């Protein structure tokens, strides 16, 4: 149902976008969303918790969190279906490829007499991903989409993944992100993008290819020490022979090619599998998704993502138990990790995408998602750009020591030099403006870091920028860039 308020917004937006050129992305947010009060102060723990539950808390999310408290906030976010996300959907209007099936996407990119256009569809998916992380009110759901996109990593530049990933993103990751793990693995195993990324379309009776079979156990379910052997990998690969992708008519859809299938008896993880075509690997998948080692592996990874790089074992155990008891109900597992685990949360180093989204959201920045992508590349984390199937590293160590592109980004963000992106720091600051530069910087720091800077550092920051001839307004601007660039803002 569209409320009257939504309807008014929609009509305003249509007028606005008609005034822009037709291909110009819609990125202007409508006025009236900012509360006329400054941001709600949060204690250090709440600030950390809210940073874990969002891609960087917006002012209105701080207010909501304070209003209803942690537990209710988590429940509200878990029930993502009930959150009206109309604003975000409007922002996604320009990305026409998101809802199309493989055959249509192939048609769009097929230049007939020219080469394939391998840019447009991946660009739209990358922009849409950023836009969703920035604008969606279903923040926890989007965090899970990010998590599973890493877990079932697909490198968008490999072969036809450049258009098939759009289908995988919609039909595998987003469809099941907060639902059943079994359905998620099932969908991923039948996903043409995954078949191509891990070479299963080349896995035939006469020439087995182990790539997908191995990663299905090593990275998607059991984990590397999950108790399978090289022999199990080879046998599962035999089960998966014939799992393939259509090349004509409904091209790009999944197909089981009977003639490529190895009809012999197989033995996977001690289970004898008689000749039964596509059912063989499906039988193994059913076994893998309920395996205790899978429960442990997924619980560990989720706890690492949401709680700490070195996940507290007590939370992992409890989450793994919940996984087994609920047959891999992702919401139930996540609820345990958040409710019990957030109290034990340790600071995590922000990966580039999270650094960027937190800077954009916390400064109430509008973006069409396009101009930001090059910064992500320089920081080392483009969306769907990790070549190997293990997904972008979650732990902090690999990401540290690459400060320069982060500094470049915040400097250009604050000065509004990024195309299609406009920060509204001024309007935020207007709300809380005082006569004192010191108070303004304190206020800014509590917005971005959760608490004001140490007095000495704050005064030194202000004095050093003033000494370079900056006006008070410029000083506040550069101070904002300095705070976003600072060590503390690199952690969440």
């Amino acid at each position, binding site marked *: 149902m569209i409320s009257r308020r939504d309807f008014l917004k929609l009509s305003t937006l249509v007028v606005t976008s008609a005034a822009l050129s037709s291909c110009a992305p819609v990125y202007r947010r409508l006025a009236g969303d900012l509360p006329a009060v400054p941001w709600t102060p949060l204690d250090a723990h709440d600030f950390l918790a809210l940073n874990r539950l969002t891609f960087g808390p917006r002012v209105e999310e701080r207010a909501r969190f304070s209003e209803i408290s942690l537990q209710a906030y988590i429940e509200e976010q878990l029930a993502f279906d009930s959150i009206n996300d109309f604003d975000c959907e409007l922002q996604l209007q320009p990305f026409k490829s998101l809802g199309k099936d493989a055959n249509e996407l192939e048609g769009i990119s097929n230049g007939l007499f020219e080469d394939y256009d391998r840019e447009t569809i991946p660009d739209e998916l990358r922009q849409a991903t950023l836009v969703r992380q920035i604008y969606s009110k279903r923040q926890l759901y989007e965090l899970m989409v990010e998590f599973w996109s890493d877990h079932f990593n697909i490198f968008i530049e490999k072969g036809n993944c450049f258009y098939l990933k759009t289908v995988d993103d919609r039909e595998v990751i987003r469809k099941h992100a907060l639902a059943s793990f079994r359905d998620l693995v099932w969908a991923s195993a039948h996903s043409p993008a995954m078949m191509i990324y891990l070479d299963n379309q080349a896995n035939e009776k006469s020439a087995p*290819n182990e790539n997908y079979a191995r990663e299905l156990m090593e990275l998607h379910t059991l984990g590397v020490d999950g108790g399978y052997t090289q022999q199990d990998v080879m046998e599962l690969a035999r089960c998966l022979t014939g799992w393939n992708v259509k090349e004509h008519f409904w091209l790009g859809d999944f197909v089981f090619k009977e003639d490529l299938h190895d009809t012999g008896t197989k033995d996977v993880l001690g289970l004898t599998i008689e000749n039964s075509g596509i059912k063989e690997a499906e039988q193994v998948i059913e076994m893998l998704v309920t395996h205790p080692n899978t429960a442990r592996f997924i619980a560990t990874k989720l706890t690492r993502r949401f709680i700490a790089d070195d996940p507290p074992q007590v939370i992992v155990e409890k989450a793994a138990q919940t996984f087994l008891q609920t047959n891999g109900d992702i919401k139930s597992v996540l609820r345990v990790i958040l409710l019990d685990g957030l109290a034990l949360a340790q600071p995590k180093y922000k990966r580039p995408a999270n650094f960027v989204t937190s800077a954009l959201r916390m400064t109430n920045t509008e973006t069409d998602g396009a101009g930001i992508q090059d910064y992500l590349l*320089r920081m080392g984390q483009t969306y769907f750009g990790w*070549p190997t199937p293990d997904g972008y590293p979650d732990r902090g160590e*690999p990401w540290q020591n690459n400060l320069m592109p982060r500094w470049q980004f915040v400097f250009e963000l604050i000065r509004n030099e990024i195309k299609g992106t406009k920060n509204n720091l001024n309007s935020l600051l207007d709300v809380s403006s005082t006569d004192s530069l010191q108070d303004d910087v304190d206020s800014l720091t509590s917005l971005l870091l959760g608490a004001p800077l*140490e007095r000495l550092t704050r005064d030194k*920051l202000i004095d050093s920028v003033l000494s370079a001839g900056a006006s008070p307004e410029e000083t506040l601007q*550069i101070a904002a860039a300095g705070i976003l*660039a600072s060590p503390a803002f690199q952690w969440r």
Partner: protein
Amino acid sequence: MLTTLPKPTTYQVALPSWMPRLAFAPHNTSPRGDTLIVVFLRGAADILNMVVPHGEDAYYQLRPSLGIPRPDDSSEKKEERAIDLDGFFGFHPSMHALLDAWQSEQLAIIHACGAPDESRSHFKAMELMERGVDDERGPASGWIGRHLATLNTGNSSPLRAVGMGTRPQRSLSGTVPVSALRSIADFHLGGDPRALQQMRLALNTVYENDVLGQDTLSIMDTLETLDPLTYTAARNAKYPDSEFGLALKQTAMLIKAEVGLEVSAIDVGGWDTHFAQGSVTGLMPNLMKDLAEGLAAFHADMQDHMNQLTTVTMSEFGRRASENGSLGTDHGHGSMMMVLGGNVDGGKVHGEWPGLEEGQIMGPGDLAVTTDYRDVLSEVLVKRLNNPATNEVFPDYQAKMPNVIV
């Protein structure tokens, strides 16, 4: 609108107390040795097609389509045959650029070399190899990181160790700060000079007590004077126009600029050739060509520095001895290392060759490992990098010197 914020009771310091601090107390003090360049071929390079055992019949039986013809196979064009090195092994024709280094005895090959890990998992094998450990229980830091931490060379340069690429390699991680460098030219803040000056001062303040930040600021200053686009290599050396070529060129520039570079880590990706890898031409031959031409250019450009340089190449494991049905190769075991430098016992294929016959291959049909990669690296550490602490760099491992260094 004027609002008064509640007065805070806690303050956020620019450098939170939980951030990792440096604990850096090396027990060996010694002048720095060679600059070490570590080239990692990511994805498990098919080394049997790089340094071809053309004297081995089994090789041709296992690889009817992918095998590289013998140097004396007159039924094939000369440029499509292996280039003989010692009567038994030969270079893939795409590796011919390395012949100069081979003939000048500055390039050594250690065949059937690798790690004990048999997981055949890229990620596990790479992780263990970069950490320099047998299994998960070892230290989480990298072997180069521990080398840097155990040897005080009196070198405090922020460019002491550099990972070429967007993030530092796992092998570099440890208590000594290292830098990631995609391009020298990228390494500056751009924009209005006045705002830039203000930003620079703000960064100085917020990173006042942060070593990594201070390093980054000084790297910024150092690199402002270097530009890879206008760099002229010695001896007309031509680096390939590739990421690898650029990484090597920038390594050469940093060495010549004498900014304190001790280690440069370079990745070359794309070696996971399960599908249509190509025999004489194609996907993998192109990778080999890039690798060989890059190393050859570096060898020529850096001739005057060769006595203070050691370059090693490595890969997480080798590939199955037999080709698969997709004209590619699946994950195998034994690999190969190359060592390039002025003090290398070069022009030789080192190591014991285990053979490819039935009974000689191991597991699902893979080349065995007869030299542990840590033996080669330990010898480089001791003889070229002045670091005797091999027991700390490779804990619980007793290295045997393979005599690859003169």
